[in-house]
């Protein structure tokens, strides 16, 4: 039944003299895709092309003449980039764990009808999506907690996203009460039920929400700029801002004492940093992509 209706629908939109229309559509979509993909190819190419090629073509290469990993060797020589990469990994991993723990527990509490304070807490969560308190008050609160220049300042303020809590809640609400009741009769407590029954049943949605949080932590730039002055605690995004967007030269000292006369062109080093910051996103993207549309929609529809 579903297949036949979808066929009818497709036909409904698409019959008629289609040939010229189809060509136009194809060309438009091809251009759209090229506009997204070509810059990535250029960035990767510039990071691996030979020194002469980069210098001769004025700093940006669309297709590399060789595979030259010098710029990667340079940035992984123990300098500022390597340190920032570690910071970003720590924030992303630690932050995601904290976010998932806090959000799932909150969402689970809100998903069982008749839990203590359910209605007001739900309103607190929903209202937090609509209204943000503002930059200055946020800064003051982080400062009053003594979190300035602490990596926790990059985690705690954004740890709970109301939207993600609602997505998780609507998934948990789909778990039948009878399953949980039978566990309770067998003598399981609330935490036991949550840990051994609810979480294993929710792997897909946990993966999506976890990846959303992880991408958020990995990409966080503004909070880092606001709260972290100590350059030793800079995450990768701040390094990118300073050395790529603001075009500050990376000196030999910044790069863990590589000898100055042998440095690859600045453009190659910059693009290598950019690639390093892209790779984790490109790795998790296929997983994210498989689930998110569904995860997002269940949250939006039932929430």
């Amino acid at each position, binding site marked *: 039944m579903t297949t036949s209706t979808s066929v009818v629908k497709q036909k409904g939109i698409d019959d008629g003299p289609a040939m010229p229309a189809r060509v136009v559509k194809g060309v438009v979509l091809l251009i759209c895709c090229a506009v997204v993909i070509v810059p990535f190819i250029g960035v990767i190419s510039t990071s691996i092309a030979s020194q002469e090629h980069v210098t001769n073509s004025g700093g940006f290469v669309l297709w590399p003449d060789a595979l030259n990993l010098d710029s990667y060797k340079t940035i992984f020589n123990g300098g500022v980039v390597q340190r920032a990469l570690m910071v970003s990994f720590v924030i992303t991993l630690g932050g995601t764990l904290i976010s998932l723990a806090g959000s799932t527990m909150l969402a689970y509490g809100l998903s069982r009808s008749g839990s203590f304070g359910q209605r007001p807490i739900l309103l607190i969560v929903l209202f*937090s999506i609509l209204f943000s308190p*503002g930059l200055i*008050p946020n800064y003051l*609160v982080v400062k009053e907690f003594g979190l300035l220049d602490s990596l926790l300042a990059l985690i705690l303020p954004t740890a709970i996203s109301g939207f993600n809590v609602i997505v998780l809640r609507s998934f948990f609400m789909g778990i039948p009460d009878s399953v949980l009741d039978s566990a309770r009769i067998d003598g399981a407590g609330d935490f036991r039920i949550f840990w051994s029954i609810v979480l294993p049943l929710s792997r897909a949605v946990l993966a999506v929400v976890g990846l959303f949080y992880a991408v958020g932590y990995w990409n*966080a730039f503004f909070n880092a700029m606001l709260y972290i002055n100590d350059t030793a605690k800079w995450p990768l995004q701040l390094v990118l801002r300073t050395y790529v967007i603001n075009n500050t030269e990376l000196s030999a000292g910044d790069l863990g004492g590589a000898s100055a006369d042998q440095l690859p062109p600045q453009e190659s080093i910059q693009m290598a940093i950019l690639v390093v910051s892209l790779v984790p996103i490109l790795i998790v993207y296929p997983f994210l992509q498989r689930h998110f549309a569904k995860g997002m929609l269940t949250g939006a529809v039932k929430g």
Partner: protein
Amino acid sequence: MALPGLVLLLAFHYLPLLGNLIAFQEYLPFVPLGRSAWVGLDNFAVIFNGDAEFLNALKNTLLITIVQVIFVFPAPIALALLLNSLLSERIKRVVQSVLYLPHFLSWVIVIAIFQQILGGSGLINNFLREHGMGTIDFLGNPDGFIALLTSQVIWKDTGWGTILFLAALTQIDPGLYEAARVDGASRWRQLWHVTVPGIRGLIILLLILRLGDSLTVGFEQIILQQNLVGRPASEVLDTYVYNNGVLAGQWGVSAAVGLVKGLIGVALVIGANKVAHIFGEAGVYKK
């Protein structure tokens, strides 16, 4: 069990609301919060008296919002309609995978990529130089700044924006298309009389939400590029709060501007929702 999450939410989302009190104080960073002097509405004077810098930030903010509602808002709708009209599910999925990707990149990465393409030694200017056509200053040109911002937003989020519309399009009853065809409707008429009404509710809902954000435009995006074009062309309310508050130390005034901005945003959403109800649409929330 809900406690840890709730505490985090209260501490970092609701406690800061109290922090807005400094909008009514003469706040000094090294004096404890409670002991700053109360100054009533003095900090709001900058708004009521029409301080030139503030007015400029307000003007830029509204201009960017208007341009983006015109150019950014319809882009995902058009793309979704295009994707929806494709026959091949496979091609559709490949195109979607490609076009969703930029949404997951940070603004720092997106702007770095744009600089490689549009910068002084970037791809396009190198091409122009090689062909003896002179270069174009895309990134430092105050007159082109809004166009630059807009193209970046379109590049980053148009693909992602199609998700909701594509979902709404699958909800349209196929029988309606059939009926339209029996009545002799062309493909364009089907689009106009069946498809567009089918997603009208969603379009209105997203427009309302956009309205609530109309005083919030591309904060990270602008802060990252402000050096190149200068503040007169690029200052918006959020950057004004940051530059005058955190950087220049005018805490109270900036908090006041931020507070007014937040309240106007909420008021706009509630007002627009009322209007939507009057016209018989569902809006963001029911009455």
